[in-house]
């Protein structure tokens, strides 16, 4: 294990400038607006025509958004540093505590068709019966019958980035104790939740029949996830896909989470690189004191409140060059597979653990962005 001290970067400035920011998280650079000096008469005419001919139907908006994606760099080159949001404070703290410190497997989810928040009770019953039927293949069960499991759907009020984001919700599978005297609500067998944080780019492409909750997080046996996912797919015509996080996005996470201002650090900042060599894989773990990592970040950080691609690259390069100086290993030739910070930790397999209550929304916002990117 290697400790990287603050003396690493020469122009190190120890002055964490964090301003207060607006809620808007995603800052899409509209490059064309500054590149074109002025629109010619013809362009004006054609844009008018375009408005006329291309109606504002969701599908056409989708097309627009696809065009936008293909014509620019797929990921926006700059993002805001996660901030504590007002909305998050409305969330039931008990529920938030329940979501923290657990390992979640990530999935992207296409919009749910005809999902209704008023029917959560009904869904609990149907899903319960479905699971019971699946578990005892071939034996039919009545919906609403008493099984030894219990399904609870509940809304996670306030878990959103903007008011436009649909409400997040939680699904829990509990085992029921056989003994009536004991606590009837037994232990939690499986938990999953659906959310959408700053999902504007997806929201504007679908009609009102759809509910966009592109990020799904599951904790529990994979077989349960499969069963429940199948029910959702059948019932709401949606599609779950595992959401992996590539090295590029992991380094973004490393930078953004390091940039978060913390009252006290709970965990070491740690990177895990994997060297693909046979017969055995070689993993390189690189742990840094969180305050040192922050100091390094501050030294490369220029744009207040924002993280740019340049800064992310520089941050990682500093780590690489330091490592190379000591061990003569080019980490840039290996693959980043895990990032752990005091805010959260993420694995390239699509597993995440969120540690810090304050930046929960910020972390989810980035994951939502990745999920939307995968389904578009």
């Amino acid at each position, binding site marked *: 294990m290697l400790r990287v001290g603050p003396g690493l970067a020469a122009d190190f400035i120890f002055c964490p400038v964090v301003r207060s920011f607006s809620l808007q998280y995603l800052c899409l650079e509209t490059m064309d607006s500054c590149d074109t000096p002025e629109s010619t008469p013809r362009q004006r005419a054609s844009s008018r025509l375009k408005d006329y001919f291309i109606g504002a139907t969701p599908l056409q908006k989708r097309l627009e958004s696809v065009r936008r994606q293909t014509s620019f760099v797929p990921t926006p080159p700059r993002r805001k540093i996660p901030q504590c949001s007002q909305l998050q404070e409305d969330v039931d703290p008990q529920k938030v505590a329940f979501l923290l410190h657990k390992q979640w497997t990530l999935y992207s989810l296409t919009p749910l068709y005809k999902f*209704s928040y008023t029917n959560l009770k009904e869904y609990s019953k149907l899903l319960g019966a479905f699971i019971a039927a699946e578990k005892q293949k071939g034996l039919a069960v009545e919906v609403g019958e008493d099984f030894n499991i219990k399904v609870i759907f509940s809304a996670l009020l306030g878990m959103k980035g903007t008011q436009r984001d649909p409400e997040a919700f939680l699904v829990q599978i509990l085992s029921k104790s056989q003994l009536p005297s004991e606590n009837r609500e037994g232990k939690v067998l499986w938990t999953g939740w659906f959310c959408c944080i700053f999902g504007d780019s997806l929201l504007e492409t679908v009609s009102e029949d759809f509910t966009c909750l592109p990020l799904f997080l599951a904790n529990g046996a994979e077989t349960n996830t499969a069963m429940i996912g199948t029910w959702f797919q059948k019932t709401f015509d949606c599609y779950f896909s595992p959401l992996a996080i590539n090295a590029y996005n992991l380094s973004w996470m490393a930078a953004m989470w390091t940039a978060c201002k913390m009252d006290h650090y709970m965990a070491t900042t740690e990177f895990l690189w994997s060297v693909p060599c046979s017969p055995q894989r070689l993993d390189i773990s690189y742990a840094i004191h969180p305050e040192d990592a922050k100091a390094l970040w501050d030294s490369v950080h220029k744009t207040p409140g924002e993280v740019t691609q340049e800064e992310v690259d520089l941050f990682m390069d500093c780590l690489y060059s330091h490592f190379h100086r000591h061990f003569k290993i080019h980490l840039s030739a290996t693959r980043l597979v895990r990032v752990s910070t005091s805010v959260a930790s993420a694995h390239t397999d699509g597993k995440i653990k969120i540690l810090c209550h304050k930046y929960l929304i910020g972390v989810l916002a980035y994951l939502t962005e990745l999920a939307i990117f995968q389904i578009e």
Partner: protein
Amino acid sequence: MSSQKRVKNSQSQGKPSQSSNSYQTNLSAWKVKEDLSDSKSISKHGQNNPVEDYEHADDKAEDALQIAVRYFEKGPTKTSRSKDKTLEKHLKTVENVAWKNGLAPEGIDVLLNVALSGKFGSAVSTQILKCMIPATLISEDSVVKAVSWLCVGRCSGNTKVLFYRWLVAMFDFIDHKEQINLLYGFFFASLQDDALCPYVCHLLYLLTKKENVKPFRVRKLLDLQAKMGMQPHLQALLSLYKFFAPALISVSLPVRRKIYFKNSENLWKTALLAVRQRNQRPSPEPLKLMLGPANARPVKRKWNSHSVIPVLNSSSCSKECGKKGMSLSDYLSSNGSFPLEQLKSFPQLLQNIHCLELPSQMGAVLNNSLLLHYINCVKDESVLLRLYHWLSQTLQEECIWYKVDNYEHGKEFTNFLDTIIRAECFLQCSVLQSLKELLQNWLLCLSVDIHVKPVMNSPLETTLGGSMNSVSELIRYVGWLSTTAMRLESNSTFLLHFILDFYEKVCDVYISYNLPLVVLFPPGIFYSALLSLDSSILNQLCYIMHRYRTNLTAAKKNELVQKTKSEFNFSNKTYQEFNHYLTAMVGCLWTSKPFQKGLYIDPEVLEKAGVAQYKSSLNLVYHPALLSYAASFLLQEWPEERTVNLSSIRGKKWNWYLDYLFSEGFQGLKLFIRSSIHRSSVP
């Protein structure tokens, strides 16, 4: 004897025809007659017997059957010692006729009554039931009467079992099922009888409609299941109930089982085949007895196991639950929409297009050509979005997971791609439609620009000529695309319709958009349309040719007026091309002189095909798309004529024929003839 027979026959004819089915019944009766005459002629050749003899024999058999039926109807006589012998003789007669030609509905009516009343004892009832084979159909009334006997308790358990098996086997030949469905409660109650249960389940499986699924029945079935365990017949019925009312019940079927009912119709296998042949319709049954194999798919390597296309299920609770405050009874009685599982034919689709239920998973439409038709014309964004999301995710996941070494998976993926490609004729049509809209938008854009600013000011095309070149390139590209598509889809009429739609835009560019451009279609499209078997295609082609003519004429006129040689004058080639097409068309439709130049067919081939005179055999009368019109024209105008003499359509008749065609909606043809043919040259 023969008089009695006649009476019987007239009875069956005089019987009040049962509403819509009368036509079918008559038709099938006619078919039987034809079959008989066929077999006669065969036997004539084989045995070298005089015809009358055979007919006589046939009559005899018929008469014997009448006697036998009357004998059974009257009931057993106590006295005679020869009772057994007579009974045996009559049974034999009935059996012979039944297995040979089947029994008429009246015969079945009487004999069913006899069998279930148990007059002759259980053994005879069994024998009678076994030979209850319809000639064509079974009347619903007979079945209802027979069921009423079950309540009296006169027949043995075995007879009941046999009767239910018979009912299941013959289910498709019962002319109506409404009355039988009213007895649903009675059948359902019979489930309690352990011996009957499997067969009653099967019958209910065939009979159940959405409105038959009630909470109390669900509970009863679950009780039975608790009592008897995991019985395949109960599973089948329960899963059907779940299909209709997912909010009431949940069941997950075991992986491997596919057949849920023992073959109830084993006894009648050959007879069933014969009846189906007589009725001349494809057998719908075996399919119904299996729940689709995809219903019971194993969970595979990953849980997104529907790399395969999802099963077609009507949208279930997502829709029902979406409506707030909908009670269970509302839900059960909602029959405003047309369930998908009943959608079998195109006319059904047309009749119910306004109230069609959509599948719960949109991906399922890929396996259903009727629904593909539907989503191809429906402009519902959510339908397309659902399909879009499903397809893009599936493709993405399948491509990533695709491993060449995994044979099974590789095969599955190829099958999936095949299905998409098969659905592609629709996609091709949609592509063409989009291209048409693109062209339209572009043309509108250009035509507006022309008026705003005479000189183009755009980074892409600086001159009108440049723009026109780009547009004509697009049109030629679509022409090339269409020709290829036509070849791949072996001249699909449906596709051709969309292609011609595109050219309906193209031919009118000069006049409608005031842009100096006329591009003709490629020969591959023109000749396919000209020789199409579909009259609407021909009509569309005529209209397009008419518009081309109008546009070209207008262009020529302008050129003459302006006199200046502008860059937008069309080359002579365009005019020549048009004239060439026009000659071919007039030759094929009017002058009976098709393809005067540039076509050579080996005379020997023509001789063999019997159309040595082909040159005079192609005009408005003989054109394959219009032949039926010519025939119905003659039949309508001269119904007294004994033969349809197509060559008689000449002179005055030719003109009447034209008027007839115009009245049948050939407006394109009308315009074409008015503009392109000088009527002095009536052939």
